């Protein structure tokens, strides 16, 4: 992978917790801390979806979060990438038989990158972000042609 102009603007990530157990959320914060330090590449968490390039979703999406998830997704500027972190965001995991779930995430919004694991290691999450960068480059490339 080589750096292209799409990297001029570093990836900003908005984190959305749709009802997870917090394990993934902690690992997401852990992957921002000095040991891994993706901030040196400009990858950081932002507080508003309007500033974000990547929507990072954890959790199996409870009924109450469906509308919020869709609204947050709509607020993000194009081009955007959705990344789901954790098993329960992908298939419900241990919560799959619950009565209050509407997920998984890809049934509600379209998903580009899946990071499986319960909970995934910080390295896996960073790998997911790198995959997102690759996808941005492809989008960028096809836009140029």
């Amino acid at each position: 992978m080589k750096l292209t102009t799409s990297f001029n603007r570093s990836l900003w990530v908005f984190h959305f917790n749709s009802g997870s157990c917090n394990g993934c959320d902690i690992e997401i914060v852990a992957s921002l801390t000095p040991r891994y330090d993706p901030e040196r590449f400009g990858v950081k968490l932002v507080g508003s979806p309007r500033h974000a390039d990547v929507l990072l979703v954890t959790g199996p999406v409870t009924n109450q979060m469906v509308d919020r998830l869709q609204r947050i997704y709509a607020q993000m500027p194009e081009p955007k990438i959705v990344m789901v972190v954790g098993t329960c965001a992908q298939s419900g995991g241990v919560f799959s038989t619950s009565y209050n779930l509407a997920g998984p995430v890809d049934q509600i919004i379209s998903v580009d990158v899946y990071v499986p694991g319960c909970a995934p290691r910080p390295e896996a999450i960073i790998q997911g972000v790198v995959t997102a960068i690759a996808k941005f480059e492809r989008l960028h490339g096809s836009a140029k042609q």
Partner: protein
Amino acid sequence: MTKKAPYIVPIGPIHPALKEPVHIELTVVGEEVISAEFTPGQTHRGIEWMGLSRNPVQIIHLTDRICGICGVTHSLAFARAVEQIADIAVPERADYIRTIIAEFERIQSHLLWAGVAAHELGFDTLFYLTWRVREEVMDVIECITGNRVSYDIIQIGGVRRDIAEVCTEQIRKCLDNYKGLFGKLKELFLEDTVINSRCKGIGILSFEDAMAYSTVGPTARASGCIADLRVDYPYAAYGDLNLKPIVPTVYGHDVNGDTYDRIVVRIFEIAQSIEIIEECLTNLPTGPILWEEKVAKILAACKKTEGEAVGRHEAPRGECLHYVAMDKADAPIAWKVKASSYSNLHVWPLILKGAQLADIPIIVASIDPCISCTDRVAVTDVGAGKTKIFTKEELTKMSYEKTRRMQK
């Protein structure tokens, strides 16, 4: 002019980490909170209900995922309840391994909390520092259990993994390292002028309220309730240790029950946990780690029994309790989970009363719920009917600005 209408500030909606996600509504006049009300329950997943159609070994994996921070708390409490019903004797070595991993969890949870508290105060350098230090204990946890969060190490009748020789070495190295760091941690958190002035005397929970509201863990101990299950109600290897509950007086000052005292208790509990692990490691008995290795046999034993029991564990945040009733079937007929924060969240209205808006993040954080509760905050001007939305960022920014003002 009646422009001083009370404002309603809803904070929330949720933080799903706990079993009881929360939304707080504050009524404020100017900067001061005059009353607070809260609503948990927005990301309800019906975990107890799901448990009623699963067998105990399956539930163990579900309990690990009730909360991502308390990876061992819920499974330990649940396993202890089932073991009492089925009369399963846990091998001594397993009791010790359970204690060791539970104490490591306390260290990582308290460090995580300390980092977040520093972040809420606008002291991000300290936040990054504590989280860097925390990675070391995560490595040890990974070495012992194979996973960084959601350890899945507890099994009905013991533990699923032994502590290997290579881990023992790593554990000792990590503990020695932490002992060296403890002085620095104490200095940074307890002697810093800004932390002192931001945390002393705010978010006070009186001893009487702490008792009447049945609070647990560091929140209760910071208010002077010397209740600690590890001491009062011996279980696992805690009965073999000579422990004393940590109350704010360890730092040589009176009990005030404020946010500062809660920091004191947690910082000193890290040191206590280090001692407990060292003692357990030295006295680690030999022998099996499981009552029965074959899962089918464990399940058969559970299926044969009937009765009810409670399993308790002193989690990093306080007492965690599981009530289980079995009736000669695969699945339990009743399962009630009482997470630690369940007993602590309902003091928010008390400790937030009279606080300043900028102090809300640290007060809310001080009882150690999961922090991102303050996701979205809306301020409604009742008189004018206007709504201003505060994001968590803005609220945190207000908190930072207050810190800056104090530094001047």
